[in-house]
């Protein structure tokens, strides 16, 4: 297991290097710069700004400056938010997204896996149909629609939950629910398919013929094996969900990092774009590594050899 983790860390270095290089190149290709605003500035002021941020240097030199800072853990400065470093910005925003994301992920698992299992166990029944209907609706409706509906119903009409903001635990409920619905629906469909497949296996039939109760069979024999494909998607899903959702954070006014995936690009805030991309890549590598480790826990046959 240790070898597996070490291997992943070694592989992550060239992956991150390539991600950083491609992102850097793409940013410089896109027309418009960070200081292009409606009001044109005199050339002398533009020269001052470019000198301050090293944008007056050739692009290869800018790349070297950026990468040499990056290896020291310095992700640069924001061109939009004066006097703030990217490390500061993400240091403030990431914990918020992480907090919300973990709750959303927990909700997605708590809703999705049982829903899929119920549907599979009751295959062909009304309950199956209803569960899959809910799952299909959950996948089909985008977050900004479900978010708006939840705000309208629970926030404005019933006044059961805060409309938005980030003041207390109860302010997390609606955004976490919004964030979780689509992954929950996806997990439900995946779990259903996986459970159905496992239920056809000989060892499940054997367990039943030996007189094991239905619930024990499902929990002990079916779910344990059925969750392997679910785990596969949980890796990237975790990275996506804990780095924040632009829609959910925007809609509920949550100070997370999800919004930077969009606003940093529209502001051409180069260092911030790089940082969000790299943080996402790092989390993806970490989440996938954890998933690989969990594979071996669920199924010892999946031990990776050196």
């Amino acid at each position, binding site marked *: 297991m240790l070898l597996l983790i070490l291997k992943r860390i070694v592989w992550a270095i060239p992956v991150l290097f390539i991600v950083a290089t491609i992102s850097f190149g793409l940013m410089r290709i*896109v*027309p*418009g*710069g960070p*200081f*292009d*605003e*409606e*009001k*044109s*500035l*005199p*050339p*002398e*002021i533009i*020269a*001052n*700004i470019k*000198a*301050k*941020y090293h944008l007056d240097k050739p692009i290869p030199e800018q790349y070297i400056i950026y990468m040499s800072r990056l290896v020291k853990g310095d992700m640069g400065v924001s061109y939009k*938010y*004066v*006097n703030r470093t990217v490390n500061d910005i993400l240091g*403030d*925003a990431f914990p918020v997204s992480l907090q919300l994301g973990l709750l959303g992920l927990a909700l997605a698992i708590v*809703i999705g896996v*049982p*829903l899929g*299992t*119920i549907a599979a166990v009751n295959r062909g029944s009304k*309950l199956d149909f209803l569960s899959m209907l809910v799952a299909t609706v959950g996948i089909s409706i985008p977050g900004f629609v479900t978010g*708006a509906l939840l*705000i*309208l119903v*629970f*926030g*404005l009409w*019933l*006044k*059961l*939950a*805060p*409309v*938005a*903001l*980030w003041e207390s*635990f*109860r302010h997390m*409920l609606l955004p976490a*629910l919004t964030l979780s619905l689509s992954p929950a629906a996806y997990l439900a469909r995946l779990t259903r398919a996986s459970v159905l497949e496992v239920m056809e296996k000989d060892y499940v039939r054997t367990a039943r013929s030996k007189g094991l109760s*239905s*619930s024990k069979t*499902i929990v002990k024999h079916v779910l344990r094996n059925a969750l392997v494909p679910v785990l596969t998607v949980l890796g990237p899903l975790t990275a996506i969900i804990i780095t924040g959702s632009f829609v959910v954070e*925007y*809609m509920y*006014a949550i*100070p997370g990092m999800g*919004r930077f995936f969009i606003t940093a690009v*529209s502001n051409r805030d180069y260092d911030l774009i790089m940082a969000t991309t790299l943080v996402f890549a790092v989390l993806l590598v970490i989440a996938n590594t954890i998933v690989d480790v969990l594979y071996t826990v669920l199924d010892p046959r999946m031990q990776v050899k050196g």
Partner: protein
Amino acid sequence: MKFLLPLLAVALVLVLVGAGWNQKSIKPEPGCLRINLGTEPPSLDWSVTVDNYSFDVIANLMVGLTQYRNNLTCKPSVASSWDVLDDGKRYVFHLRKDVLWSDGKPVTAHDFVYAWRRMLTPATAAQNSFLFYDVINAYEFNSGKLKDFQQVGIKALDDYTLEVKLRRPVAYFINITALSPAFPLRQDIVEGFADSWSEPEHIVTNGPFLLTKWQHEYKIELTANQRFFEGEPKLKKIKYFMVPEPSTALALYENGELDFIDNRSFPTPDVERYRTSPMYHNYPLLRNNYVGFNVTKKPFDNKLVRQAFSSAIDRDVFPKILRRKEFPSSCWIPPSLMGYDANSGPNFDAARAQKLLADAGFPDGKGLPPITLLYPQREDVRLVVEAMQDQLKRNLHVNVELINQEWKVFLATCRNDAPQMYRSSWGADFPDPETFMSNFTSRNGNNHTRWKNKTYDDLVERAGGEPNQAKRAALYKEADTLLCKEESPLICTYLASQNILVRPWVRGLEFNAMDLQFFKTVWIEDSSPLSFRGFSRGICRGSSKFESIKLNAVKSRQIPRIARNDKGCRISQRSY
């Protein structure tokens, strides 16, 4: 297992009920004004920031030599008086001795000299430093050609006397002294705390409120400054939330969690819904919208074609499609600024437009090359250019192709090679026609039309230095007529407006066309016997007798007074 789903649903509802049961009826937070800023201010460093989100906060944290009244004339502030000497080329400001920084130290002339030196230092890269280029040697110092700041025309004659020397008489200079880049700075604070000097734990300010909390991307809190030289404000606290989504901000307002929202938080369909509400207020902003012609490209190298296009547009259509009480205008100087004359621009006259086009050699639009109009991606802008496309088709039989681009790409295109037509707008930097008129001078970087006219340049230059107000107004009027009616490198369309909703317990609020939000005169009437629950819905829908009674009760109370004087404009308004 089969009970799991209903159990989960019940549990979820119980959690939500438990979490939200203590939701209160709509009422004020005592002594606190809660408003939506919309987004994170890029900086509270008043020397370098250029956006209106930052200014909204800074306007309540700091005061400069002068201060705008709500009618946007300048009044003394840190400077109790000033002398204008040497035919308008030298200003001597006499500073009050009772203005204190928030840590108790006095504000002195040296703080202004330091602030201006820092702002003009090339390494600071302050974008608004060009506003000070009329100060002797400011341009040379800012562009790195001069290293010795002693030669720049600002000097502390003593602790409380500040001298500013200009290279030419500048009639609007006093307006510049009320802008945030001219505010004083404390050298020990800025240099002692480097990049973090403007964070709440370090910042010192001299205005009516103190910065006490800044949760980035979420909330800023200000509290009343007991040392403010005009007296402690009545408001104890201001909470600026940063809710980017307008419909969410409106929902917070309707839920009683915000007391005040403006255009940033007010979707157009909801403006319609609140139009008749006493909480709704509207006033024009000094942001003029236009479509420019690139006069170096055919057919707009011919001024008759430009005049024809400008005369073919009925500006009255814009408020009907945008529905925010925009002010149609065919001239460049906004109403209430000196030099404004509605007749400076062309009137809508389709017959005249067709004749002009025929005179240009394109009868019924025949022979015209393909014409494109570029606009930035935004819903309201799309509505405007589509309306213009339609009018040009109907009135001139001309086909115009619309092309949209993402904002920054659009800006780069206009700057590098503007197409035949492009849509843009301009919000004033300070309340004077100069800020509008200088845009179309030959050497101005904002003049994407590439139109150059020596007469126009001379008129604007002369007006800028003319001390006699009547003569200044006449010069600007002449220049505006030349620009909009005779040469027409642009089609002026309409002035934007501000739409706001204010809860009735917010008192003393005044507005100005520059949209500077000064809250030092505001207070919260929080000892109200009236339940405001449902207030907003009641007055908007008026659907029940009960709601009507409440509405009348509220109407009988003092509704916030609105200053309708719309002279002035907003500093560096956000790009639209």
